C-alpha cells in the first residue's frame, strides 16, 4: 500500500530523514515512533506529497508520489499534528468541500457524515464555524474529513492529541475497521501504550534514521515497547 524507499530529506545542513525505507501492506496499522525532531513529521509530509524530498521514492499502491501525485492523493488521507482547518467555514461546509475535492457523491457523503458525526457526537455542531471549535472538535472534524472519501490509506501525525477518551477509543475502532476492510494506517505517536496495543507493525526513528522496524514481537520481544524505545534512545 505504501512503500518508502531510501527517503532522504535535508533542511539546510541537517538531515531530517536519512535513507529511510518502509513498507506498509494492506490491512496493517503501522506505528511510527521517535523523539521530538526525529523525522516523523517530515517522513509523513513527504509521503503525503506536501513536501518535496531530496532523494528516494515513495509509492502509494504502485503510483509514485513524485510522478503521479494526484493519483496517490486520491487514494489517501492525511491528518496533521495540528488540525489547522478553514476557520471561515462551518463544519458542514468544510466536510462538503473535502467531499467535493475527492468527488464523493451527494448520497455517499451524506451517509458518511451522518455516521461519523453521530459516532463522534459532532452532528449538532456542524453548523458552527470551525473558528468556534475547540481543539478536540477540530481534531474530530479532521478525522471525519479524512474518512469521508473512504481512502485506502490514512496517514496521521499524532492523531490522539486533544481527543477525549471516548473519541480516542472510537478512532482506534475506526482504524481497525479500515484495516479489516483492506486499508492501511500509518501514524506517528508518542503514546507508546497505544502503539503497543493497536499496531501490527512499528518503526522507530532516531535522528532521521530508521533504527528498528517490524512486527510488534520482532521489535520488542518479551520487553515492553517503552523499555525497548528508551534503550534504543539511550544508545549512541
Amino acid at each position, binding site marked *: 500500500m505504501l512503500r518508502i524507499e531510501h527517503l532522504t530529506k535535508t533542511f539546510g545542513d541537517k538531515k531530517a530523514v536519512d535513507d529511510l525505507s518502509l513498507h506498509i501492506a494492506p490491512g496493517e496499522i503501522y506505528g511510527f515512533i521517535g523523539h521530538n525532531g526525529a523525522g516523523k513529521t517530515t517522513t509523513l*509530509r513527504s509521503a*503525503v*506529497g*506536501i513536501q*518535496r524530498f531530496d532523494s528516494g521514492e515513495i509509492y502509494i499502491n504502485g503510483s509514485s508520489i513524485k510522478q503521479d501525485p*494526484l*493519483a496517490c*492523493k*486520491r487514494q489517501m*488521507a*492525511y491528518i*496533521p499534528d*495540528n488540525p*489547522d*482547518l*478553514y476557520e*471561515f*467555514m*462551518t*463544519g*458542514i*461546509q468544510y466536510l*462538503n*468541500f*473535502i*467531499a*467535493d*475535492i*475527492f*468527488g*464523493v*457523491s*451527494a448520497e455517499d*457523503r*451524506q451517509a458518511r457524515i*451522518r455516521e461519523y458525526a453521530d459516532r463522534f457526537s459532532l*452532528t*449538532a*455542531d*456542524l*453548523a*458552527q464555524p470551525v473558528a468556534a471549535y475547540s481543539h478536540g472538535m477540530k481534531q474530530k472534524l479532521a478525522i471525519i474529513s479524512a474518512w469521508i472519501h473512504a481512502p485506502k490509506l490514512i496517514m496521521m501525525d499524532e492523531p490522539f492529541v486533544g481527543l477525549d477518551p471516548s473519541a480516542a477509543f472510537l478512532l482506534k475502532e475506526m482504524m481497525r475497521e479500515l484495516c479489516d476492510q483492506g486499508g492501511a494506517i500509518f501514524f506517528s505517536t508518542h503514546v507508546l501504550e497505544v502503539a503497543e496495543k493497536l499496531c501490527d507493525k512499528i518503526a522507530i526513528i532516531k535522528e532521521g534514521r530508521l533504527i528498528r522496524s517490524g512486527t510488534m514481537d520482532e521489535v520488542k520481544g518479551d520487553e515492553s515497547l517503552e523499555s525497548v524505545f528508551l534503550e534504543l534512545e539511550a544508545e549512541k
Partner: protein
Amino acid sequence: MIGLLVRKQWMDIFKNFHYNPKTNKARSKAGVIGYYIFYLFLMVGVIGGIFSMMAVEICDPLSAAGMGWLYFTIFGLMSVLLGAFGSVFTTFAGLYLAKDNDLLFSLPIPLSAIMISRLLIVYLMGLLYSAAIILPAVIIYWVKVSAAPLVILGGIILILVISFIVMILSCLLGYVVARISLKLKNKGVLTALAAVIFIVVYYVVYFHFGQMIGSLVDDAGTIGANIKESFYALYMFGRIGEGDPLAMLLYTVGTGALFALTWFILHRSFLKISTSTGVVSKAVYKEKTTHQNSVSRALLIRELRRFTSSANYMLNCGFGILMLVLAGGAILWKGEDVFYVIGMVFGPELTLLILAAILGMIAGTIYPVTAAVSLEGKNIWIAKSSPVSSWQVLQAKLRMQLLLAGVPLCFAVLCSVIAVIRFVPADPLMIVLFVLLTLLYVLFTSLWDMIWGVRGANLNWSNEIYVYKQGMPVMASLFGSWIFLIVIGGLYFLLTKYISATVFCLIITVLLAAASFIEYSWIKTKGAEHFENL
C-alpha cells in the same frame, strides 16, 4: 499596581509602535519615538489642523453675533462624536472583551485596580480624540474673542466635561458593540457594510461641510434661537466655553453624577460582563439535501467564502467593487456632465480613452488575488494533500479575482456604453475598442496581481491583516496598475502626432492581449511550480 496595568494596556494598544508585527522584534528607541511622533502629527497636525481651520472660519462671525455658545456647542458635539467613536473600539476590546481578562482575574489583583486601569485607558484615548477638536477651538476662542479668567476656566472645564462624557458614552457604546459582536452571524459582511456606510456618510458630510457652515453662519440667529428653545441643555453646554458659572456648575455636577452612576454599574457588573462569553444562539445543524460540486467550483466557493468572511479583506482588497458600481451608476445618470468635463480637459476625441483609464484605475483597487496565496497560511496542507494540482488552486484564485473585478467592471462598461451612445457622437469601432481595452486592461492587471501574490507569498504571518495591507505584493498590485496607466498615457502623448486615437487603442489592445497571455502562461507553469515549493 494601577500604573503597571495601565502601562501593560498602553503597550497592548500601541504594540505595533513598539514591536514590528512582521518579525515580532522590538523596534529601536528611535523607531518607537518616530511612530509616536507620526501618530501625534496625525492627531494634532492633521485632525487638529483641519478643525482649527474651521474654528478660525466661524469663531468671529458667531461670537460677533453673540452666538459664542453655538460655536462651542458645534465643536463640543463634534468632539464628543469623534471621541466616542474613536475610542469605542478600544473600550470594546480593552474593557469588555480584553484577551487577558481571565489571566488578570486569576492573579491577586483587586478588581477595582483592573477596572481603574482599564477605565483610565478608555479616558485617555477619548481625551486624545476629543481634544484634537475641542482644544484648538477653545484656544482660538481665547485668542480671537476673550481670554478673561472665567472664559479660560470655562474652556478648561468644557474640555474636561467633554472627556468624561466621551468616556461614559464609550463605556455604553463599547458594551453594545461587545454584545452585538458576540451575537452577529455574518460579522465580516456586516462590518464591511458598516464601514462603507461610514465612509460614504463621512464624505457626504465632508463635501457639504463648507456649505453647512456657511448656512449656519448666515442663519445663526434663527438656528441659535431654535436650539435654545428646544434643546436648552445644548445651549448650556456651549455656555460653558463662554465662562457661564451656572453652566459650568450644572455640567460639572451632572457629568460627575453620570460618571458615578457608570462607575457604580460597572463595578457591580464588571466581573460578570468581562467573563461572560455571550449567550450566542447556537445554530444547530439540520441535515439538508446536498449536491456534489465539481473540483473547480468547490475551490472557487472556498475562495469566495474566505473573501466574504473578513471585513478587512473585503475593505482592503475589494473596495473598488463598490466604487465601480457607483461609477457606472454615476456615468449613466450624469454621463453628459462627465463627458463634458472630460472633453473640456482632455479634448472630445479622448473621452473614451480617459473613461477607460478611470475605470481601469478604480478596478486596480480590487486585488484580492494578491493576498489569496499568503492567506492559505497554516491551512496550506489541505490544498497540498488534496488531489488537486497547484494550477487548479491558482486558477480558482484567479477566477475569484476576475469575478470580483469583472462583474462590476462589466456593469460600469455597459453603463458607459449606454451613456456614450446617448450623449457622445462616437465611432462604433472606438466604442468596441473602449470595451475591449477596458476589459483587457483589467485582465492584464488581475494577472499581474496574481503573479505578485504567488511570487511574494508569505505563509508565516501572525495576523492576516498584514497580508493584504503591507508588503511588496500589495504595493505592486495597487500602484502597479496605476503606473501602467501613466505609461499608456505617456505613450499616447508621444505618439499622438503620428497615429490617431483609434489606431493607438488598437495597438494597446493587441499589446495588452499579448502581455496577458504571457502572464497567464507564467502563472500556469512557473507560478504553479512556485506554489508547489511553498
